């Protein structure tokens, strides 16, 4: 066996050291790049979440506020937007006298609920009266109902005259930007989240002159510029 050849095989100590240092450098470079990519991915995800939540909030609020009139049906403050959240419309069957029971053909996005709903009664001239809904029973009177309408008798907390022709069913509620999400509070109950909790505490309503908007910032720090959305005119 050639012992000299055996001693010369492999790397020398400086070669091995340089090789290890180069390897370490490459590993560090790769690890740093991976960390940056993960951080970028996290920021991107946070921005996307904030944007999607903002779009949900905008859709919900545009729909809700568009159904009513500012000042009469909804009111914006720096903390919340209080509103009559309209849930359906009923045509009132003709009647000759003042009464607290109305036969109606109702169409809406959910069933009337006397525990939480009230009515805006409208006459042909646009005059409005508000009544609380006390009871709901089915009716057999088919006073010109459209297919799909529910025929019902609605009992009110106070009598209404024969002029009213239309009733709009609503629940009192308010929208809040709290704890990183858009929340809806029905009546005096708790605030239920409508979006994921993805916004920072800097997120809020923007009341600028004649319009109401939404300013949404991602909860993750350094996730970029905020998003702005138009919601409604306030004049």
């Amino acid at each position: 066996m050639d012992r000299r050849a055996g001693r010369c095989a492999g790397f020398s100590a400086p070669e091995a050291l340089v090789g290890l240092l180069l390897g370490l450098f490459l590993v560090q470079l790769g690890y740093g790049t991976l960390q940056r990519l993960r951080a970028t991915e996290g920021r991107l995800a946070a921005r996307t979440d904030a944007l999607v939540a903002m779009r949900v909030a905008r859709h919900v609020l545009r729909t809700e506020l568009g159904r009513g009139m500012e000042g009469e049906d909804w009111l914006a403050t720096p903390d919340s937007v209080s509103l009559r959240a309209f849930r359906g419309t009923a045509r009132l069957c003709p009647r000759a006298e003042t009464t607290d029971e109305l036969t109606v053909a109702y169409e809406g996005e959910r069933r009337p609920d006397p525990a939480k709903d009230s009515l805006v009664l409208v006459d042909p001239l646009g005059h409005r009266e508000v009544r609380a809904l006390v009871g709901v029973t089915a009716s057999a009177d088919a006073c010109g109902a459209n297919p799909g309408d529910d025929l019902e008798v609605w009992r009110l907390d106070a009598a209404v005259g024969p002029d009213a022709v239309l009733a709009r069913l609503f629940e009192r509620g308010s929208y809040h930007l709290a704890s990183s999400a858009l929340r809806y509070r029905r009546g005096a109950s708790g605030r239920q989240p409508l979006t994921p909790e993805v916004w920072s505490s800097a997120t809020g309503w923007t009341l600028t002159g004649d319009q109401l908007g939404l300013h949404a910032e991602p909860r993750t720090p350094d996730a970029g510029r905020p998003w702005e959305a138009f919601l409604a005119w306030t004049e």
Partner: protein
Amino acid sequence: MKGFTLLEVVVALLLLEVAVMGAVGTLTIASRTLGEAERLERLTTEAEGVLDSLAGVATPGSGARTVPAGTLEWTVDTTGTVRLRALRSDGDEWLAVTSAVPEP
């Protein structure tokens, strides 16, 4: 006589450089694409806001607005039809929408 020849080292370095350049190029393109996507997303969001605001007034008017991501231009004709164009910062058209404004 052991070790690498100069030619081997040069070839190895060239191969390494190609690989590094490829990786850096990919990252640069990804970064640019991400930035462009962000700008277009903002431009689209601004356009949505303008359309929403026009739908909420009885008599919408024509106008234009410059935003960081580009320019928005919209016209409203006598039938209430809105035509909105979103132009990127380089002047290219990104979005063109034609819609009827519903009665508020």
